[in-house]
């Protein structure tokens, strides 16, 4: 299968008062079309920074990347057309109705008004939001909010969907629903899904392949079973043990503060 995302030495250094901080030191990875990729790593490993670079929100300070054949540095507009992004915080105004947010999103992707209205109805039907269209987004439950966030990111039928910790804070039922949704997107639309998560059971259940980053570089990658075999010692190893073996860290002491950049 063709690579839909590929990066080489992708890096980002932040200038802070305390001196330069290398949040991402050089990420090399490829994601194949239609793949669900789990992007794992401890807090501060550079997951969100990588995601923000791949979605054009942040300019890399080194390396190169292409998304759906568009170069990140020279064709950010092409990258934006080809990808959808759901940030950890989501991205809706709590005072606005679901319908208005969906239609506005269509208009932001330059759909004519009637087409934006039709697309909103279509997305709502597809993501089980039809009954909620006239509700303000602030009145949605966590799971409904997440479905709305994803519906918005799917407005322009992107080839790649980036999800930053999509199930954080969801109850088990909503998490299971979201997993189903992600699988369905891949199966029905061949959408490539690039998702970060801290839940190892989620990565195990959902991802075709995992990339584990640590200290700003790729520490390991492969299918969940290959990683278990190689780092955990056997196929029966838990992904938790595998993860700890890869990142070389035991459980974090209770008093450490994660370094956030």
């Amino acid at each position, binding site marked *: 299968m063709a690579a839909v995302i590929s990066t080489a030495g992708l890096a980002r250094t932040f200038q802070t008062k305390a001196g330069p901080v290398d949040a991402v030191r050089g990420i090399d990875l490829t994601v194949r079309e239609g793949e669900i990729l789990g992007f794992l790593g401890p807090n501060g490993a550079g997951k969100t920074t990588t995601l923000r670079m791949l979605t054009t929100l942040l300019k890399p300070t080194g390396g190169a990347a292409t998304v759906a054949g568009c170069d990140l540095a020279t064709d950010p507009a092409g990258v*934006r057309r080809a990808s959808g992004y759901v940030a950890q915080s989501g991205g809706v105004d709590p005072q606005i109705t679901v319908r208005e947010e969906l239609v506005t999103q269509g208009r932001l992707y330059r759909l004519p008004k009637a087409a934006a209205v039709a697309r909103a109805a279509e997305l709502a039907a597809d993501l089980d939001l039809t009954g909620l269209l006239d509700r303000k987004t602030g009145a949605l439950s966590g799971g409904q909010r997440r479905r709305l966030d994803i519906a918005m990111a799917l407005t322009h039928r992107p080839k790649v969907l980036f999800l930053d910790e999509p199930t954080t804070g969801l109850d088990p039922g909503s998490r299971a629903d979201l997993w189903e949704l992600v699988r369905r997107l891949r199966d029905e639309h061949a959408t490539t899904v690039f998702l970060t998560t801290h839940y190892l059971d989620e990565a195990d259940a959902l991802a075709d392949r995992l990339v584990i980053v640590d200290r700003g570089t790729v520490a390991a990658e492969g299918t969940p079973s290959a990683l278990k075999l190689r780092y955990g010692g056997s196929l029966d190893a838990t992904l938790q043990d595998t993860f700890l073996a890869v990142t070389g860290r035991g459980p974090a002491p209770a008093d450490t503060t994660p370094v956030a950049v």
Partner: protein
Amino acid sequence: MLLHDTALIYGRYLRQSLRSRFALLFGVLTPLLYLLFFGPLLTDLPLGGQGSSWQVLVPGLLLQLGLFGALFAGFTVIIEKGQGVVERMRVTPVSRLALLLGRVLRDATVFVFQAVLLVLAALVMGLRAPLAGILIGFGFVALLSLSLASVSYALGMKVRTPQEFGPLINTVSMPSMLLSGLMLPMSLAPAWLDVLSHFMPFRYLVDAVRDAYVGDYTSAHMLYGVLVAVGFAALSVTAGTRVFRSAGA
């Protein structure tokens, strides 16, 4: 595309303003209080220049409305950053300039609307001024709010918390108000203060609107006022767009 995107963003934020009618009216409260409880003190004082004291005070209050209102516009962008709305829009193909222009045009609309309310109240209090002059005054309010809101949004994109933002804005707004002679004309000031106030760009705006309110549309004040207002707007919108284009905020 720019026009389409600007109209879209403008509509979104105008609806936001219309949803909070209370806030829409609340903005006029401070200048209205000045009009009611400070204006009458001036009626018999020698303020220099032509016309009544209302023709001196009301132009100042109009610009005060823009100054204090528009400078705080950036608060909303700090909130929207937290909600993720800013980034959600920045990953779409929407024009970066439109993200700024749609917002500042909304602000200009709101402040001109408030300015109209203020002038209506002033007419009841005793203001008499030529219609053309009053319309010119609204034009200056629009330009000033456009400029200050651009600066404010740019700052809002850079700053991380509302706690940093408030003090920063107050540091700018209070000296600006005092040094531009919004309440009383700087022609009353001792020489040193008069000289100092010439370094405050808003002074030229208020002088121009005061001339407009007495029907003097071709004075040197008017020329300087227009030049400063247009120049400041160009500068602020350019700076604001640069931030909206690049911000990793």
